């Protein structure tokens, strides 16, 4: 009994249960939804969200927030799509490197402002969010890059099936493994937790919290850059409003997954399950016959519910030993 209770207290178990209930409910009326093939499709569809939510979770762990990730996707995606359109001969590897480098640069701008000037992350990324998307408009002049303007390898990579799964799914799986290793097995990963969990104690432990935050933003930006390419290639179109509002989905996935917005709490498993939970809902809505216009309200309601649940968990634990207020000012 106790084991069951302690298992249920864990966010991951709760989410697995929630996902299962959701699947059973949907399958009861639409048996085709839970075929392995369709579920693989749902995972594939959620891969980008999983990757970006993992990047976002690194930032949230350090007690910051990155609202600019979706705009980063739009700007990077537009850049590589236009490069591909203007220079079809350019090898795909170069384009992917460009996407990674550009995402990294955009993330570094956020991180730099947060690190060096100590500006609250919410303000920095609220600003860069509009700047990045505005730049995507300036770059493209508001024009679209359509499927026929992209080269075949550019379009085909995420769809190429390897060992039964598309490359996009493999990218998602790889991101999960890498994130799990980074968060739990490296100094930087532990520094993310320490910075958000208790900044003062982290400083006394010799962690440069500014630099840690900077690196979290760089990570989040780099992932967003890669997803910029994946997004544009997967949906075979690039325009200014690509991924509009997607930053909220990444935050929602983190919050549902039990990542505390006060920093320092969260697991890779939770984030992945949080993203999958959203992914199942998103894919199920059209199947059940609910208008996609419901999606925004539903994710808003889920975010609020998850934050309320998270806040309850935090109140019980009382894990902060050395408070920030005790720093001599």
């Amino acid at each position, binding site marked *: 009994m106790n084991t069951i209770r302690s298992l249920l207290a864990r966010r991951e178990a709760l989410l697995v249960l929630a996902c299962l209930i959701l699947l059973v409910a949907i399958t009861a009326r639409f048996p085709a939804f839970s075929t392995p093939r369709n579920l693989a499709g749902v995972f594939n569809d959620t891969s980008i969200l999983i990757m970006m939510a993992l990047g976002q979770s690194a930032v949230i762990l350090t007690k910051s927030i990155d609202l600019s990730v979706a705009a980063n996707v739009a700007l990077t995606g537009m850049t590589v799509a236009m490069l591909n359109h203007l220079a079809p001969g350019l090898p795909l590897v170069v384009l992917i490197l460009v996407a990674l480098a550009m995402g990294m640069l955009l993330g570094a701008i956020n991180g730099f402002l947060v690190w060096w000037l100590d*500006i609250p992350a919410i*303000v920095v990324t609220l600003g860069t969010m509009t700047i990045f998307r*505005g730049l995507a*408009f*300036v770059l493209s002049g*508001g024009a679209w890059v359509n499927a026929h303007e992209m080269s075949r390898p550019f379009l085909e990579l995420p769809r190429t099936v390897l060992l039964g799964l598309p490359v996009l799914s493999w990218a998602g799986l790889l991101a999960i493994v890498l994130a799990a290793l980074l968060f739990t097995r490296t100094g930087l990963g532990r520094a993310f937790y320490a910075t958000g969990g208790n900044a*003062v104690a982290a400083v006394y432990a010799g962690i440069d919290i500014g630099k840690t935050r900077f690196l979290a933003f760089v990570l989040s930006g780099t992932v967003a850059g890669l997803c910029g390419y994946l997004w544009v290639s997967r949906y075979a179109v690039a325009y200014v409003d690509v991924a509009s509002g997607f930053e909220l989905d990444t935050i929602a996935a983190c919050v549902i997954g039990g990542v505390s917005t006060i920093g320092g709490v969260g697991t890779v498993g939770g984030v992945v399950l949080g993203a999958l939970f959203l992914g199942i809902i998103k894919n199920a809505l059209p199947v059940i016959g609910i208008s996609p216009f419901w999606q925004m*309200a*539903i994710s808003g309601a889920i975010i609020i519910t998850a934050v309320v649940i998270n806040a309850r968990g935090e109140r019980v634990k009382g894990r902060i030993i050395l408070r920030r207020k005790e720093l001599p000012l």
Partner: protein
Amino acid sequence: MSDPSAALSPRHIPDRLDGPFKRALKSWETLLLAVAIAIAIANSLASPYFLDPWNLSDATFNFTEKAILALAMTFVIISGEIDLSVASIIALASTAMGAAAEAGAGTPLLLLTGLSVGLCCGLFNGFLVARLGLPAIVATIGTMSLYRGIAYVVLGDQVYKNYPADFAVFGQGYAVWIFSNEFVTFLILALVAGVVLHRTVFGRQVYAVGNNALAASFSGVKVRRIKFIVFLMTGVAAGLASVMLTSRLGSTRPSIAVGWELDAVTMAVLGGVSINGGSGNILGVVIAAFVMGLVTFGLGLLNVPGIVMSIFMGLMLILVIALPLVAQRINNHRRAR
């Protein structure tokens, strides 16, 4: 924060305080006013029609609704919180008014609908932040998605436009000569906000909560109640802005006022309100509203598209916070040597 040793270094204390005149001259508000005048001059040079009274009157329309949001946002930010859901409240209130108008409601009822939807949204935000103690950023990101989401559920890709003819008075009517109803309302509200923030106990308590909520609560300030009221105010302000905007446009889509939370926060921060809470004043925010209004209007005269203007807004938000910090850094550096 990032460097504990910096916090321990002695503070620079000047030998003599500046006189009141000199202090006013060096203040943020004076700087803003100078910027506003400079932009106005630049605009009048760029276009000969700029100084036409009716043109100036038109220029006020594109920022008064946002400025009303900014006045309330000032209270929220000074109290150490933030409300990112204001633009979504506008969308929800506008949708409710559209539905009411469709059902045949008259203008007074529509006004009441808009304001009360705003009030309810503010009530819910206040409940989440002040009552349940949730971090305002995530809570209002959640309600931001929820409120606009409901507007989408109700409207989808449809539009409400059957507003009664006399409903246009809020957004299109004029009080005296070139002064629109919107503009006059804004000026009155700015005056009220200034008096409440700077001349009442409540105003002082908002500052106290934002500076140090713990100390404030030990001093007998009801921290939760203050935060709750502040979110209520933003809700009602958003409801009012929604009435004006809907009345001005004469139609409602769920995508109405997208991104306005950024503009409202930018106006407050540009007006010298510290994003960390505890400091700022209404006069600065009012001047900042004029600066932003003049900038967007000037860019509009130059045919700059809206999304490019938003780049300027984003840059302005970051630069306004960054520049004083950079200046301070350089100053400290020089003094240390």
